């Protein structure tokens, strides 16, 4: 633009003066070469990684890790059975936790003051209590209520069972972890619901869509974009968090390898067995999350 040239250049310069050329430079070609910024950080990082690789090398070659033992136990029935329990417990707790959590989030945002307070109180209580304490509490509930019964209120009992028989360790694990998970899931879902533009809800109301349909068809699918990444985080956290049930003797992945090393004293290789399985499952979940995210990103720029 001649106007810009006039502004940038010395007013005494000739009309064909090029203000971008430094004085004394040879007449440059029109295509000037671009030199990118030097990536010194990348080289430093590479050096650090090289040092770490040497550590990994020592880990792999150190006989004390007993990789042979790792291989020996990696696919034994006991370990696989423990892995199976860890997996279905994770899936069940996450699913139940998010169903309950979604309900809590909707209550928390409802116009009903009583329900709002109930939801707030639940989230406050179960986020404050360590999950380990909660599991131990449920485990000892038999001391508080030795018997549970169904009957007419203030009248005769029709059916009575011993609490200990009704609530086995696995049931306690499901209840305790779900109640804990739901409190966190509620906040994740609430964050997602808040991320949906107010106009979306108004448009749905203006079209006469009912509350349930608005939630299911309009708000939740859009909230999922904000819900999925932290939910993926929680799923992976729950996968590893289920190992806490080993304290109440539920035979999950960790408890299964503990049973072996209490017998054989091969503590490190058996912990490696559990660790590698956790890594494998976490990696698979990560891939799954990518596809779920892509599904809920449909209709947005950059993801078709």
């Amino acid at each position, binding site marked *: 633009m001649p106007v810009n040239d006039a502004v940038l250049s010395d007013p005494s310069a000739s009309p064909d003066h090029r203000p971008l050329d430094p004085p004394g430079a040879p007449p440059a070609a029109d295509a000037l070469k671009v030199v990118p910024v030097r990536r010194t950080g990348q080289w430093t990082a590479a050096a650090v990684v090289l040092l770490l690789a040497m550590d990994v090398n020592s880990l792999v070659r150190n006989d004390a890790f007993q990789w042979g033992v790792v291989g020996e136990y990696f696919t034994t029935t006991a370990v696989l059975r423990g892995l199976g329990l860890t997996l279905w417990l994770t899936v069940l707790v996450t699913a139940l936790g998010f169903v309950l959590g979604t309900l809590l989030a909707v209550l928390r945002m409802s116009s009903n003051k009583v329900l709002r307070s109930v939801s707030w109180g639940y989230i406050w209580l179960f986020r404050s209590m360590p999950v380990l304490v909660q599991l131990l509490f449920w485990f000892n509930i038999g001391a508080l209520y030795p018997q549970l019964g169904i009957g007419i209120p203030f009248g005769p009992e029709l059916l009575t069972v011993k609490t200990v028989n009704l609530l086995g360790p696995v049931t306690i694990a499901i209840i305790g972890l779900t109640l804990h998970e739901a409190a966190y899931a509620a906040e994740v879902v609430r964050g997602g619901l808040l991320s949906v*533009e107010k*106009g*979306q809800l*108004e*448009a*749905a*109301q*203006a*079209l*006469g*869509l*009912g*509350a349930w*349909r608005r939630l299911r*068809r*309009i708000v939740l*699918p*859009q909230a999922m974009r904000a819900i999925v990444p932290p939910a993926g985080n929680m799923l992976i956290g729950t996968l590893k968090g289920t190992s806490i049930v080993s304290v109440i003797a539920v035979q999950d992945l960790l408890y299964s390898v503990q049973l072996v090393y209490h017998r054989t004293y091969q503590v490190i290789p058996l912990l490696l067995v559990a660790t590698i399985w956790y890594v494998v499952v976490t990696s698979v979940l990560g891939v799954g999350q990518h596809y779920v995210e892509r599904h*809920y990103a*449909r*209709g*947005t*720029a950059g993801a078709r």
Partner: protein
Amino acid sequence: MSTATTPAPPAGTRPMVEVRAVHKSFGALEVLRGIDLQVRTGEVAVVLGPSGSGKSTLLRTINHLEKVDSGRISVDGALVGYRRSGDKLYELREREILKQRTHIGFVFQNFNLFPHLTVLDNITEAPLAALRRPRKDVLATARALLDRVGLADKADAYPRQLSGGQQQRVAIARALALEPKLLLFDEPTSALDPELVGEVLAVIKDLARQGTTMIVVTHEIGFAREVADTVVFMDGGRIVEQGPPGQVLDHPRHERTKSFLSKVL
């Protein structure tokens, strides 16, 4: 308000919308200070006025997106949002309000299309949910509406793949899918690039020609002159003056109307 006791007035004079003494405050701010307005069946009313004059709020009270503090609004003879018993108004349950809204189409400034649904799903969502019509009929109607707004080839696109003008035309088709008795437009072209305004106004003009009853809040004076039967000028939560466009736009009686028009023309 009952039309059964009085002989039905001739078509074109029956009031579609009646607003009586409507007041509305947000906290200490009174945004509507006693609004009276009548829109006849088949009439196009264009509401003009500076920002903050209460025109959008008025529009939103007509389909009960905003509740009124006092006064009453009826559409096609039915009170909006309330049931009258004696000298009291009882607020309706949400289900009944939602049913009333299916008779009142609303087009938003920011389109508010559902971004995760295709254009066709945007249009069919409400008829499938609210009217419980067979899917085949709803789809056929939706495609016909898309054709009418000139977007027959965009049925499977997602809203964000469309230009602003195209999105607003889809939003109009979505509002029409419920076959409303009344269409409300809240600044339908204010969020658009200037070169896209014309295509949206063309669709609204087409609806006006076919006798759709409409209330349009806008800043497009040229559009008001061409399409409006009545121009309503609002300022400070009141209707300052109203009348045919030739009168209000060319020979405004009120000082505030004159000064507003001199700024926007």
